[in-house]
């Protein structure tokens, strides 16, 4: 930065860069369904819907340094709300009812669960998270009359918005808008004093408490924010998959969001976005050739990423490569101008 | 005889000890200096806890730099850490035994710590976490000397000890010296060092700036110490040497 100002080269400021990137990417995401097959569109839609829950993991990880395996609960809650109300016991398929309802339920459940799960940090939190997902799984699995047991609920009608029945394309744009809105909301939250306080908590619990931060309340709030994200995405995921089963609650499903966040890189705000796209893309690519191997491949990739670059993830690697070429270009320019 | 030759230790970019050379033979040498001057780091380097960048550490002419941490006790280096660091859930006996077994396995002669530190007898079978600070220090010393090392390293020996216990510990140090052991200590207070040290080495930013008897150093350095800017007192280095 300093070098640039000294050489007098006009660089667009950092924020503008991001704004431009956001607009460009959103525009691409908006027009792409017009050019690609239906299948690819569904895939992109799925990527978009993976972003909010991955953001939940990201918030808990980057601010609190905890591993959040329990995102699948909220995905599952949202999905089953959609499946019950718009599928099995058809009441309404109006998104303006489903989404807020799922949001409220997720927040409520996250509030209650937070009391139990957030009590301790470290492996206690991770294990309790896994335990909760398993508890929900067995609940859904065994309440066969209501939930359809292991068969799940398939036959979910497409939702409507403002009373207008949405097509598949319409659902795509709703997903885009919802996920973009949540991303912007997360950005707002991460630039607020809330995130600073959370960072203080991750440093030292006792110290944070002694300077007057309500430690438990703040941590539970982070958990609620993460859960709300997943709950909203869950409704749209149910419509997207057109099927909801107990595997939605399985612990490995929650672990996949952790993997996605790690692949993307939890040191960067764009990490979860990159992670969601890379994860879903990889899952698709590997399972087209080797249907049984995608979990193995992704597991190995995550393990390698953790060992080699830690929290940097793919974003960090790309940024590093990109930064190096940029620096080299800069350097060449400088030598050129210096060697007059 | 312990001889340190051109020792340099760093944590990342921070150099904690810069090219220090010193010898200890049959005496009690105490490293003094402000917090973060590199005293503790130097001791940790000799004990094998901190990795060194360059230099040699000679024990009776044999370089011990490449000897891993768990073999240093066998090689003849005993270390008493700053905050005692006992094995809390174990009895005093077991604390001492751990070191004794290691020494015996290596064919080293172990020593009768109960004879050397008769005070231990009164709490020999109690859990070490239940002991007072002075008693814990005593156990920590016993653990370091049970393998009859040639060199004993004491980090902040008298830190946080009441006067009576401090005298007792000083007495222990003098008896160890009488047994012919080389003793290297680190002490942040010059007054405390003068209670037991034959020679004081003043470290400043990882380098030796003065050397002499406690009285000499006191007269030499007092003016300097008074003028020392407090703001520079804190450095990260001292904290950062826990091996992962």
């Amino acid at each position: 930065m300093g070098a640039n100002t000294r050489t007098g080269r006009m660089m667009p400021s950092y924020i503008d860069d991001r704004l431009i990137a956001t607009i460009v990417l959103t525009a691409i995401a908006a027009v792409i369904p017009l050019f690609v097959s239906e299948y690819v569109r569904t895939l992109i839609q799925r990527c978009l819907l993976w972003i909010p829950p991955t953001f939940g993991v990201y918030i808990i990880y980057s601010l609190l340094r905890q591993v959040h395996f329990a995102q699948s609960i909220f995905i599952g809650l949202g999905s089953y709300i959609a499946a019950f109300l718009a599928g099995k016991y058809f009441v309404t398929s109006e998104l303006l009812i489903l989404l807020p309802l799922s949001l409220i339920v997720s927040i409520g459940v996250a509030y209650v669960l937070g009391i139990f799960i957030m009590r301790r940090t470290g492996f206690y939190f991770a294990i309790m998270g896994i335990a909760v997902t398993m508890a929900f799984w067995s609940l859904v699995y065994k309440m066969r009359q209501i939930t359809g047991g292991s068969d799940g609920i398939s036959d979910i009608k497409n939702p409507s918005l403002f009373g207008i029945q949405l097509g598949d394309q319409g659902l795509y744009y709703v997903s885009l808008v919802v996920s973009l809105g949540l991303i912007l909301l997360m950005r707002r939250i991460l630039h607020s004093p809330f995130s600073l306080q959370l960072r203080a908590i991750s440093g030292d619990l006792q110290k944070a408490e002694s300077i007057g931060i309500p430690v438990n309340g703040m941590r539970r709030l982070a958990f609620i924010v993460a859960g709300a994200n997943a709950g909203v995405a869950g409704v749209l995921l149910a419509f997207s998959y057109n099927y909801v089963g107990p595997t939605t609650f399985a612990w490995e499903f929650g672990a996949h969001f952790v993997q996605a966040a790690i692949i993307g890189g939890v040191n960067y705000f764009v990490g979860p976005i990159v992670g969601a796209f890379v994860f879903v893309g990889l899952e698709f690519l590997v399972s087209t050739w080797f249907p049984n191997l995608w979990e193995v491949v992704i597991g190995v990739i995550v393990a390698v990423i953790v060992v080699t670059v830690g929290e940097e993830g793919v974003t960090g690697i790309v940024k590093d490569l990109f930064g190096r070429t940029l620096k080299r270009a800069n350097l060449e320019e400088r030598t050129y101008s210096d060697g007059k | 005889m312990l001889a340190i030759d051109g020792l340099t230790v760093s944590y990342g970019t921070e150099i904690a000890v810069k090219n220090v050379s010193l010898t200890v033979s049959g005496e009690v040498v105490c490293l003094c200096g402000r917090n973060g001057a590199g005293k503790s780091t130097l001791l940790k380097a000799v004990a094998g806890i901190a990795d060194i960048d360059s230099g040699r550490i000679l024990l009776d002419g044999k370089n011990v730099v490449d000897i891993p941490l768990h073999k240093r006790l066998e090689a003849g280096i005993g270390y008493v850490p700053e905050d005692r660091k006992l094995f809390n859930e174990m009895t005093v006996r077991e604390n001492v035994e751990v070191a004794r077994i290691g020494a015996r396995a290596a064919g080293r002669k172990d020593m009768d710590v109960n004879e050397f530190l008769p005070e231990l007898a009164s709490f020999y079978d109690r859990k070490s976490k239940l002991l007072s600070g002075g008693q814990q220090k005593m156990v920590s010393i016993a653990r370091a000397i049970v393998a009859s090392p040639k060199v004993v390293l004491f980090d902040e020996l008298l830190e946080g000890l009441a006067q009576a216990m401090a005298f007792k510990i000083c007495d222990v140090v003098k008896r160890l010296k009488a047994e012919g052991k080389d003793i290297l200590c680190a002490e942040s207070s010059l007054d405390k060092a003068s209670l037991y040290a034959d020679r004081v080495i003043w470290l400043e930013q990882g380098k030796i700036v003065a050397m002499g008897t406690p009285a000499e150093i006191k007269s030499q350095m007092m003016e300097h110490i008074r003028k020392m800017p407090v703001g520079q007192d804190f450095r990260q280095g001292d904290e950062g040497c826990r091996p992962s």
Partner: protein
Amino acid sequence: MFSMGLRYILNALPVVSYVILLSFSYSFLLYICGRVSLTFAGIYLVGAYATVSLSIALMGNSLSFAGFMGILLLASLLGAAMLVASYLCFERFLKTDVHRMVATSSLLLVFRGLVKVVWGTTPVTYSAPFLELGVSEIAGNIVPNYYLFMLGLALLLMLALAYFLNRTSWGMRFRASSLDGDRTMAQACGVNQNLVTLMTFAISGVLAGLAGGLYAPIAGAAYGSEANALLLAALSVIIGGVGSIGGAVLAAFIVGIVRAVAAIKMPVLELAVPFIIASVTLMLRPFGIWGKEFRY
């Protein structure tokens, strides 16, 4: 009433026994090395499949119990080898607890995926040893001898480990290196930490592999059972306290029996019950019933 209670307890014995082994496999690693690792559940799964496949391949229908013991031994050695290999190739590069949790959970998914590739998703069963041992009668309740054998073996191993830790010189070194002691100072006292870590991983692997192998004749080797095992074992550690043998046994009994009761009375809450017990424990005793206060 009493006989009813006894029946529940007897029915819960297999789960209790394997949870004892598995939870201590996890908490031993955590206690001695300070390492969180979820890989043990993967080892459990592989142990179960290895036992069943080996038994079918080597013995078919002609079962000798000694042969089955030999296969169990093989399964536990396989577990030890795998966990040690996973440490040497992978886990030793993980520097923080968060990294360990993320990476080992991924490793667990890898194990799971490999099991799926090798054995498929249909459960494999081999109940010959279970049938072979016959049944006996305790206070009017018929109980398979295999249940008693499992519990006996689990308790025997725990006793052996307790003896090893508290009475032998190597055990003393282990305790000196544990969370209760001080790793660096233990090493400065001549305890080779690399060796201690390797041995801890090996013991942990033996326990996990054996847990899988022992339970396999009853439940079969089933893809997906690792989640159940992970849950019960890890919750038992939370309930019993890290590093405590008594805690592991007690917690396994609590979790196993309450879960067995719940499975009959309220099957819907079968897996919620262990979680509720763990939550209550954390509220009353944050470090577990028998646990000590660690930095975790």
